[in-house]
């Protein structure tokens, strides 16, 4: 491939692009917002599209309307601003604690905002949702929580480090039966035990636990970062209380259906499970850049799973023709 200085840059994740002041675009990174003028934003977009391709520099310069030297200066300025980074600056390795403090913890809030950026939440909070959607969400959360039994013990089985497997096993012991909280909620919504137990999760709900199983088999840190992202969704009552309060107000969801969910969240806080990843990763003296990157990748993919999961819930339960609960297919009855 043609050698050029431009190929030495990597692209940082942009979480949101919105119109900025005047004729600008505001790009939100995890730690800052950068405003670009229309022309710079256009050239930045062309550069980002071109970077991973086989295309020649000439194609980029033609598309961006800038010569290579000017694009090089732009790339350097974008790197200084934080939109790009220089690959030469990538560390060869980090300690576990560094990984947590410098790479995971600073990204978590942005990751969670990405996970919960699905329009479902806005819809539910503004009265455009329905009791049926809330019920579907609770049903899938029941399955997801019950499916912890498919991945938490597996993570212990695939761990060779004594300190880590002990932490993971304790976590499992504290969480394995939490699906009862959601079963209680579903009973308050009118479902029988038979309805709940024979129901079939959505493919994307199953996918969440299958992805956790995949992580458990590959690398305990990959599994643990996914677990940490999930725990991150339950850390702060201020985040989730408004949702539950609104659904009782807007859609007549009985308080008895919401209370078990509050109880579950309170228990999670009491256990301080959100600190578990720090405890685990702190036992690791050194992570190669490749392993650290793979672990981060798992964390971010889990974020994407949550978004897609929400999308599936909205699509299925938003359709009045979809059976609730989802029944297994029966060739004799269906």
């Amino acid at each position, binding site marked *: 491939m043609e050698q050029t200085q431009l190929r030495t840059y990597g692209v940082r994740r942009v979480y949101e692009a919105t119109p900025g002041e005047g004729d600008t675009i505001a790009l939100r990174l995890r730690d800052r917002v950068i405003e670009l003028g229309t022309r710079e934003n256009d050239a930045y977009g062309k550069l980002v599209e071109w970077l991973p391709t086989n295309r020649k520099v000439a194609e980029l310069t033609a598309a961006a309307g800038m010569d290579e030297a000017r694009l090089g200066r732009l790339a350097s300025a974008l790197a200084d601003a934080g939109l790009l980074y220089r690959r030469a600056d990538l560390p060869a390795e980090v300690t576990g604690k560094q990984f947590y403090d410098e790479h995971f913890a600073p990204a978590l809030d942005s990751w969670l905002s990405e996970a919960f950026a699905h329009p479902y939440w806005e819809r539910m909070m503004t009265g455009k949702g329905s009791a049926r959607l809330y019920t579907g969400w609770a049903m899938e959360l029941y399955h997801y929580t019950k499916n912890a039994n498919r991945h938490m013990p597996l993570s212990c089985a695939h761990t060779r480090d004594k300190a880590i497997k002990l932490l993971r096993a304790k976590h499992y012991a504290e969480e394995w039966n939490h699906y009862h909280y959601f079963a209680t909620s579903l009973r308050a919504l009118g479902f029988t035990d038979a309805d709940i137990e024979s129901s079939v999760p959505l493919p994307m709900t199953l996918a969440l636990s*299958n992805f956790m199983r995949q992580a458990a088999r590959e690398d305990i840190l990959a599994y643990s970062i996914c677990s940490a992202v999930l725990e991150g969704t339950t850390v702060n009552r201020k985040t989730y209380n408004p949702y539950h309060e609104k659904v009782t107000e807007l859609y007549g969801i009985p308080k008895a259906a919401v209370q078990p969910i509050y109880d579950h969240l309170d228990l999670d806080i009491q256990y301080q499970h959100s600190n578990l990843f720090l405890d685990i990763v702190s036992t690791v003296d050194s992570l190669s850049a490749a392993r650290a990157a793979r672990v981060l990748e798992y964390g971010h993919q889990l974020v994407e799973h949550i978004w897609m999961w929400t999308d599936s819930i909205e699509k299925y339960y938003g359709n009045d023709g979809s059976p609730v609960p989802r029944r*297994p297919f029966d060739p004799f009855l269906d």
Partner: protein
Amino acid sequence: MNTAIPVLRRSAKVSRRDGRVLIQHLDEEISLEGAGAALLDRMLPLLDGKNKIEQIAARLEESPARVRSLADSLRGAGVVSYLDPGHEGGGTMTGAEFYAVHQRYSRYWLRDVYQHPLWDKITNGTASRAQVIGFAFEKYHYIEGAYEHMAVAAANSTKEMMPHLARHFIEEYLHGDIYRKGLQSLFPDDLVLHAQPLPSTRALVNFLSETAARSSFAYYAGNEVLQLTENTSDGAVSGSIDDFYAAMRRHYPWSDRLVGSFIAHTHADQKLGHENVFQEMCDSIPPLSAAEVKDALNVAKLMTEHLQLFMDGIDIHYGNNPSVPRLPCDLLSE
């Protein structure tokens, strides 16, 4: 036998039009008029699987023979079944019967996949560059997933299924490279190899892998659903695939080598002659228990739902995010 318990299939849809009663089930519709329609109208509330023929006749003050005759006709048309010990788990089904049921339902369930809006967007040129390239990448990831699910299937197979599953893996493990070659026309090989699949694509591969680990037959029943999407002996499907590729080349001229790789893969699959393998397998197995039948058909149904999810993922993610391919994280990308 008036002790039979008729039940209207849950997936049957009943409507009334111009004095006729219409029952739609899968891709068939039956229509009754006159006295038959009048009797059916009265029988419908009682076809709930709780009443024997003689009880229905008594409730309607009709002769059991007449009720039985109509119920038999409806059963023959496939819209009513008789509950029997098989339903409770005691009966069996031959492999050949299973194959016929599997084909009928799977082809019906696949309709939603074929009607996914992404096909139209690509065919009429309104899909974005990211959606078209994303489609190619996700197909690559899914085909490359053979290393996972086909290998897991071979490694966990029953002794009867082992030759089929071993052959399947050995014949297909290089197929991902066909797509990889197409993608190399646009992106460096290293990047193709390290690009990250969507959660919805992982969901498909993981679902197959998890099924492969626990049931060889159910896995193959799920895999057969995929085979049906490639089976070009169906003239209509074959024609629409050709049209799709031609439209892709017309609207996205840069995708020529990608399309070439899609076609090369279809030809490679055709050369293997896999379209009859499942039927031959079904013909050679001992009768299946009701539980095995239900399990395998539920896997087939979930496969079609995962395929729908696969299409949703491509349509939505690449529709919202112009960045393609999905680069893996590194320590500075977040």
